[in-house]
Every structure is written in structure tokens, then in C-alpha cells.
């Protein structure tokens, strides 16, 4: 790695804290402020079919920050790709191009436009059409496409909607279909298991020569002293340890990983902790290593 990895935190979609008179939007807003002021690089607004909508969360987070990349995760069956791209183009215009996209292809939906895509193969075929069309209208002033799920004739963004950076595209999953879709379309592939991410990255890179970034989405528990960790009850599958331990782990992982999407509870306090105690160790190491 010649560059510091990016650090993002995940926004809540449901009420997690009992603040009298305050709901999930306030929890989200305070976390976004924490991430911005503590020097993180971004936040992820997750798709949650049983929670609050991610466009509302992402637009609000972008409007009230200056620096953060805001990755909006959504399901590609929820809207037509031209429309999705158009909403994103306006958002890029409004926010100096800080919007990212993450598609939740494997996540459940309660509805979709006909014809329904039900099997994994159909779902990934539909997602591939979605991305072909979204990028097609974004990058070409005259774009035509006829697919099974989507049709565009003489489409394409013009005037103020043309020439904007396409949202940095994040895709997930470890199935063959998922990796093939990423090889074709993703800017960033997000893995969720620190133990197998190196192998996953190798499989993915064997499918394409495109420059593709790797992200790790994981829980994280860090404390100053080892004895404090026992009380913190870390998640066995995630990153945990003292500041020095985890900084070492992250530095090691950074050979394969370009971005870390972190979840730690309670979110706001832990975001401050990560910004003050962990990031300086990691970033100093990365900078020193690059010299």
C-alpha cells in the first residue's frame, strides 16, 4: 500500500438508543458529525428492508458534512437504473461528488417490477443490467440498451447532469456470481471476513485485470489496555485488541485492503475513540511505510 486505507463507519437504520424524545435520525446525525470531526473518511448508509431508507440517510449526511464520502447501499430492484443514476447525478452536483453506491444484490426485497428475478442467476443478471444501464446513461450522451429487465432508447445525461464522477461503486458477496459481477463493474469489493479476505481478494483479482479496490466490513473493539477488552466483550469474528494490536493487524491487512468499514457500539463514542486513538497509529505507520 502506498496510500493510507480509508476508514468508514456504518450508520444505524433502526432505533438503537433510548433517548427520550429523540429517534434514529438524531442518532444518525450525531454519528455523522462524529465521523466528520474525528477524521474518518466516510460513512455507509445501509439497505435495511425493515429499517429507515438509505437515500434519506445519505442525502442528510451529505448535506451536513464537508468531507465525508457517503456510501448509499440500496437494492437494484427498487428503482429503474436511469432514475437511480439521475438521483445520484443530482446528489453528486449538490455535494461535490461525495456519493458512493453499494448494491445489496443478495439482500431480501419485498417487491420488484415484473418480470421478477428470483433465482441467484436471475438476480445477478438483473443487477448486471442495472449497472450497465446506469453507467451507460451516465457516460454516453446517446445510449440505447434492450435487455430482459431494462430498456432505454436514445438515453444519456446531458447539460449539467453530464460529466460528473460516477458514484464509487461497492459490491459485496463471495459467490461466483457476486465475484463475476464485481470483476465486471465494481470499484470496490466489500468482504466481511478478516480470516478469508486475502483468499477472496485473490479469487477476485484472478477474474479481471481492472484496478479494483478491496474493502473489509467488520465489527471492531479496541481498548487501551488488554484487561479492558474482557469487559468490552468483542465479537469473535471481528477485529479486537489494544490500540497497538489492532493497528498492527490493520497495517498487515492493508497490503490487501484499501478501505475498512467499521461497526462498533456504542457507535458515536467508539467513532471518537477510533479517530483519536487508532487512526493516528495506522496512518502514521502507513505514511512511514510509504517513505
Amino acid at each position, binding site marked *: 500500500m502506498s496510500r493510507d486505507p480509508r476508514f468508514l463507519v456504518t450508520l444505524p437504520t*433502526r*432505533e438503537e438508543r433510548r433517548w427520550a*424524545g*429523540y*429517534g*434514529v*435520525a*438524531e442518532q444518525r*446525525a450525531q454519528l455523522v458529525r462524529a465521523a466528520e470531526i474525528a477524521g474518518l473518511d466516510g460513512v455507509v448508509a445501509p439497505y435495511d*428492508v*425493515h*429499517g*429507515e*431508507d438509505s*437515500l*434519506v*440517510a*445519505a*442525502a*442528510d449526511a*451529505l*448535506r*451536513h458534512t464537508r468531507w465525508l464520502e457517503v456510501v448509499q447501499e440500496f*437494492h437494484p*430492484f*427498487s*428503482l*429503474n*437504473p*436511469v*432514475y437511480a443514476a*439521475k*438521483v*445520484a*447525478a*443530482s*446528489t453528486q*452536483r*449538490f*455535494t*461535490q461528488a461525495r456519493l458512493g453506491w453499494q448494491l445489496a444484490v443478495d439482500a431480501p*426485497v*419485498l*417487491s*420488484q*417490477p*415484473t418480470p*421478477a428475478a428470483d433465482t441467484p442467476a436471475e438476480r445477478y443478471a438483473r443487477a448486471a443490467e442495472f449497472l450497465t*444501464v446506469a453507467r451507460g*446513461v451516465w457516460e454516453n450522451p446517446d445510449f440505447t440498451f434492450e435487455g430482459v429487465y431494462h*430498456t*432505454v*432508447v*436514445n*438515453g*444519456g445525461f*446531458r*447539460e*449539467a*447532469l453530464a460529466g460528473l464522477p460516477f458514484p464509487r461503486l461497492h459490491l459485496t458477496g463471495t459467490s461466483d456470481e457476486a465475484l463475476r459481477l464485481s470483476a465486471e463493474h465494481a470499484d470496490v469489493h466489500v468482504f466481511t471476513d478478516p480470516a478469508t479476505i486475502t483468499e477472496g481478494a485473490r479469487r477476485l483479482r484472478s477474474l479481471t485485470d481492472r484496478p479494483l479496490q478491496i474493502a473489509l466490513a467488520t465489527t471492531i473493539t479496541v481498548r487501551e489496555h488488554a484487561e479492558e477488552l474482557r469487559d468490552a466483550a468483542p465479537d469473535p469474528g471481528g477485529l479486537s485488541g489494544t490500540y497497538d494490536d489492532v493497528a498492527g493487524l490493520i497495517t498487515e491487512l492493508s497490503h490487501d485492503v484499501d478501505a475498512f468499514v467499521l461497526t462498533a457500539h456504542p457507535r458515536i463514542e467508539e467513532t471518537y475513540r477510533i479517530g483519536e486513538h487508532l487512526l493516528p497509529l495506522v496512518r502514521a505507520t502507513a505514511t512511514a511505510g510509504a517513505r
Partner: protein
Amino acid sequence: MDIYWRIGTHGDQPSLRRGLSSRGDWTPTGPGSIAPGLRGGALDGYSYLDHMADVARAAEVSGFTGGLLPSFPFTDDPWAATAALVRETRTFRFMVAFQPGFLDPVHTARLSASLQRASGGRLVYNVITGGGGPAQLWWGDPVAHDDRYARTGEFLAALRGTWGAEPFDLDGRFYDVRGAHLPEDLATQAMPEIYFSGSSPAAIQTAGAHADYYLSWLEPFDALREKFAQVREQSAALGRKPRFALRIDVLARPTEGEAWAEIERGWDNVDPAALDFDTAGDSVGAARSRAFIRGPVRTARDLEAEPQVWGGFHLLRGGPAFGLVGSYQQVAARLDELVELGADAFILAGVPHLEESYRVGSEVLPLLSTRPTAPSRPVQPVDSSIHHLTRSAS
């Protein structure tokens, strides 16, 4: 009476005198440009959204109920703008124009309920079924005109079905819905009111079943009377009593002479070739507008179909043809007549939107025999107080 203003999603002109936009970045940014502008020769970091925020605040303090955000291929998107701006206003309602064909109904329900919660219930729909023609295919929508209305009907049925905590299924022609419902916290939000656009028989058939307001552009009054009667009749057959909203551009000045002088200044800069009304698309509304002007058009007043009802606005700025031109008293009187004729809500607009919202709010609205709806209590823009209000109300 709910009286909305319009928030342009395609930039704005400083006046109707020249069709030149200097607000927003649909024209090159230079000296005098606003949002973005130049500072020390470099872009100042503001975007068109910042001007939209100014218009929303101007219309809010001027007494308007809210604002309509239109949606076309070349505009900014109303959902993106609304989601960004709800926390910057207090009572202002955001009327989001959208075509149901582009969105999944269950997704739309969750998106809308999340916005209702974030805004304290200030989201309103302008449901458009589509002007058709090349634009419809540009959007990625190959469905034909009457089928689009069938889809709109299915979409709205699925949206209503989803809006609750009980599972909803629909094995539809356009949507496949399985066990859809809203999360518990969102299911208690009110569903937005629906302003329904469309003038064709298929539109009236669909609107009658779903619309809270049947939205029409301004037309000569006899034509509106006839259209309202037709919708009432079709709605009565469905056991419903429709309400009507009119979208009206206004150019109001202290005297009628000053108002027409302003139109004349714009008229002097109109390209005579533009006098052919645009014929693209299968929009019945556009075709209707065209039919109201008879005889040759040589002067601006040749487009005055009846007193104060002028059909040339589309020549001076993008948008519908008809609007009201006159003194503050004349414009207010015509609006009052429209209320008598059956209008239950207005969406007004004027160029430039910021300055004209202050003017119309302070000079025209007070002359109406009806008042704009005043918020029953201030709704705070943040989620905190929304919860607070919900709890104290229950």
C-alpha cells in the same frame, strides 16, 4: 386552502425579459452567476441546491404551504433535493414530482415514510404518469400511454397496501409484491397526499380512484369548468368526490400596465420561430394548451385567451403556456374566481422564483378571499421534536 409555490429544478432566470438562466449551472458559470458563482475567479463551492434552499425558505416565510419540485430529463431530481433540504425548513411541505413507473411501490413507501418521519409529515406527492414520446424511452420506460395509467393505478394500490404493519401481496401485471409492509416505526406515519397529473380519459379513470387532488395546468376558465365536471362525473361513478388543484404562473404588478410592460419586454426577445407550439410527446395536456389559441399571433396580447389569462409563458421560460397577468387585484380576483369554479388548491409560480415568492406572498395572497393553510403549530425540522410532538399528541 393549500397554496404552494414552485421550486425550479432546472435553474432560474433573473426575469422574464430574456430567456437566460444565471441561477444554477445549466449555462456556463461567469460573472453574475448564482449557485454556483465565482469568487476570486474560482467556483465558490455553492451548488444549485443552495439556491433551491433559498427559494424554499423564501416561500415558507411568505406564507406558502410548500413547494412543487418538478422532474424532467434535464432537471435535478426532486427526491434528492427534498431529502437534503427537509431539515432546513420548518413548516414547508415538499411536493415531489415523480413517475411511478420508475420506482418500486414498496421501496417508495419506505422512502416516503422515512421522509415523513424526518420532516414531521411534510412530504406530498405529485404523481405524473408521463408525457410519453422520446422522453419516456429516455427514462428507460417503454410502456405505452394507457398502459402507463394502468401501471400507475397498480403502483398506488400497492403503495397503499404496503403502508401499514400488515403483510401485503400483489401478483400484479407490473409489480410482484410478497409480504410487503413498513417497519413498525414507519407504519404510523401518514401517507403523503397525492396531487395527480394528467388530462386524458385514462388519467381521469386512474385519478378518480387514487387522487387527493386532481392537478391541472391553468387553461381558459370554460375549459377548466368542463374538465372539472368530467372528473366529478367519473369520480361519482366510483363513489368519490374529487378535489382540484391548479398549477398557475402569475405575473402580478401594482398596476395592469406594469404587468403587461414586463411581458412586452420579454416578448421583444422571443424568436418568432418559437411561436409554433412544441408538438413532441403524447401529452394530452400539451395538446390542449395549443388548441386554445385561435388566429394569427403577432403581438403578446394575441395570446390573451381571456382577460388576464395569457398563453405565452412557455415562450419566456420553460414550462406550461398559460398563466395570469395583471395587477395584484386582478390576479387575486381571477384566483378567487377559480376557487368558485372548483379549485381547492393552487400551485403558483413566478420568475424569478425567489423574489416573486416574496412579492406574491405579500401582495397577492392577502387579497384572496381565502387564506393559505397556516400550520397548526410549528413543526421543527429535526427528528427530536417530531417524536416529541407525536408523543404529546397521542
